[in-house]
């Protein structure tokens, strides 16, 4: 503990400073042509596509419910929620189970899960809503710089909110 405090007091140059910066981990997913990051702390599980039982009379983005180890978990389409086209289910499609404090678990459908990245706090910049389509901007809380690539970081809280 003391050591890191000492390090903090050093001038911010050289490799040592990286040690004390907060590192965040994100899972990079693909929706259409865009890559998004989801904070790994929210993620409970990543599943292959499985049978989803449709629930009648619910908003279209709610695809239905699945059985996850004996629990019934609702699943929604991130694409529809974000105003993109209907999902095309193929072998890369995954269901990511998010654990959200207030709402319990919910699954989201994504086109593909690509990788896990680590970003330090200076690589992340919070957005005030530029870039991306108008619909999807609502759900982006920050943009991360991963090498040459920009990753939109999803705001899980706003995804889990009801549209109404």
């Amino acid at each position: 503990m003391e050591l890191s405090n000492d390090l903090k007091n050093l001038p911010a140059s050289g490799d040592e400073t990286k040690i004390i910066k907060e590192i965040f981990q994100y899972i990079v997913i693909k929706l259409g042509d865009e890559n998004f990051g989801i904070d790994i702390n929210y993620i409970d599980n990543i599943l292959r596509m499985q049978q989803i039982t449709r629930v009648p009379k619910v908003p279209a983005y709610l695809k239905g419910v699945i059985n996850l180890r004996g629990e019934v978990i609702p699943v929604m389409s991130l694409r529809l929620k974000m105003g993109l086209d209907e999902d095309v289910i193929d072998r890369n499609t995954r269901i990511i189970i998010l654990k959200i404090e207030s709402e319990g678990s919910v699954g989201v459908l994504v086109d593909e899960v690509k990788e896990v990245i680590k970003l330090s706090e200076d690589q992340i910049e919070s957005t005030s809503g530029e870039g991306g389509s108008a619909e999807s901007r609502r759900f982006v809380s920050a943009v991360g710089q991963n090498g040459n690539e920009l990753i939109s970081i999803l705001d899980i809280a706003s995804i889990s909110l009801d549209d109404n």
Partner: protein
Amino acid sequence: MDVSQYLEIFLDETNEHLQSLNTQILNLEQNPEDSDTINEIFRAAHSLKGMAGTMGYKRMQNLTHDMENVFSEVRAGNIKVGPEMIDTLFQCLDALQEYTDNIKNTSDEGTNDNEPLIKLLNEYLNGKGAEAPAPAPAAPAETKSAQESDTSASSDKWNQIKFDDSQVKVIGEALKSGMKVYGINVTVKESCILKAARAFLVLKAIEEKGGEIIVSNPSSQDIEDEKFDFDFTLIVIAECALDDLIKAASDVSEIDKVVGAPLDMDKIHVEDEETADKEEVHENAQSEQAPSQEVHAETAPAPAAQAPAAAAAASKPADKKPGKPIVNRTIRVDIEKLDSLMNLVSELIIAKNSLVSASADSVAGSGSSNDFNEKIEYLESVTTNLHESVMKVRMVPIENTVQKFPRMIRDLNKKLGKKMELYMTGEDTELDRTVVDEIGDPLMHLLRNSADHGIESAEIRAQRGKPETGSIFLDAYQEGNNVIIEVRDDGNGIDVDAVKKKAVEKGVVTPEQAQTMADKDAINLLFHPGFSTAKVITDVSGRGVGLDVVKSKIEALSGEVSVKSVLGEGSTWTIRLPLTLAIIQTLMVVVGGEKYAISLGSIETIETIPAKDIKFVENKEVINLRGQVLPLIRLNELIEVESTSPQDGNLTVVIVKKGDKMAGIVVDELRGQQEIVIKSLGKYIKQVKFISGATILGDGEVALILDTNALL
């Protein structure tokens, strides 16, 4: 002082005693002379006082103390029970309830001294004048003589303790190093409720004085478990004087007396073979203290009071009950533990279902699976029985919930200035614990409703030729897989025209609708939110938030409520609740390739209806089933899927009922009966009106459960 571990027990027991006081005082009001009732009240008040004192709740103790005094005089026949006294006593109970609630919420009793009540109680006490001050001192005298005879018996108890070698060594070393060794005998007051807590405090007080307890009789574990009569003996090594220790121990409240003496090494019993014979003789001859201890340990759950009787029995006050009442063979179990047990049973049933479906698949292939099938059937019967047993564990009689109602009606009598009586039957009817906890409020609403709106004033009743005292009935009974609770009164009944008028005023229905509305539908308007027909708003009912809350609460418990009424004769409110909530028997149906479960409880019959038999009434499809016209619900339209079966041939129709309403649900296919575990759809999917949950089928697929009650 750490009494927190006793807090829960204290609260539980206090509530029980308060409930019993409520019931008994009501009883007393009817039969002011009944000595059994008076005794019962006295005992409950006494126990309450002891418990409150032990826990350090002084105000509560004071109030119960005065109540106890009053009852003591009543019991002795020095005071007569009058109506004002009953009122005062009920106020006392309310005050005690308030203390208890405070303790529950803040673990502090609050600051209300309730002086007016205490004053009133004392007035009753003094009011009987100097007629008979005799009984009061009589009791202490009795205990005094008890103490005296007890002293001789207990004075040398520490000399009867058997020491083993190592203990003797410790004592020897202590003496050598200038420490002193004392034998101390502590007697707890017989009125003490939490003896173990008291004993614990005594031990702590001695330790704080620097005393080291090397031997105790009974063992410290037994003391902690309250496995001792009224006294225990300690051998203490300490530097300080004996008097200091005795004083520290006596300062603990509810300790009757503490005696002690330096240990005389010549008198103690060392447990080795040489002295064994001698000891036996000694034991038999002198006192049975030691052997009785063994007996005591073997018959642990038996009343502790009986075992070490030799010394104490003779000296016990005459009014002492013959031993403690035999404790019920029950245990308190945390409801969460039961829930987890229930979840495991659910898992087991799902696993069993998957085996059943796996076997069904394999049967198609081979013919030699008879054996396999038999075993699966066996498993099925075991899981069903297990489920039933676990359900039964969760069942409690509704008694605890309904017990408070007679008192409530009594209070309403006074408040509303009406005369009415509550009659209850079927208090022993059992329901799931969670349901019983929730059902209290709705029932209270209905009873208050009957008392306020139903029962007429005595004058009107007299005019109508009814008995002056109105009757309200609360009947509970089991009917199939449901429990029915009826609240019935012989009051005014529901004035349909008044209801309609009010509904129009409130804008719930249009005047035209009201005119054509059937009486039954009009009565159901009462359950509409924001509806109240009371002309005067009272704090009893009539705030317009009663009946709709009742309805939604009961529906949340998967139950239903209905009402029947005859104007001028009274009304009957019927609550129907399912016995079990978590696991139900269902019929699986298929519509448009999707599977849905329908609770067997709500299915009347299954019919095959030719499409040409469908008639139209007001543009809606109906069928005529054995003379009864039923609306037809096309499930595929409701859930917005394409039906896979032809619509012009024969239709498979599941006839469902809710109370006396019925409807036909058209499905594509029947898949047979299945026991399912109800799972919630989760908070995320906002309530779909006709879906009550989901379940996991044997093959892992999720199927939704159709709530047919919502369709009717």
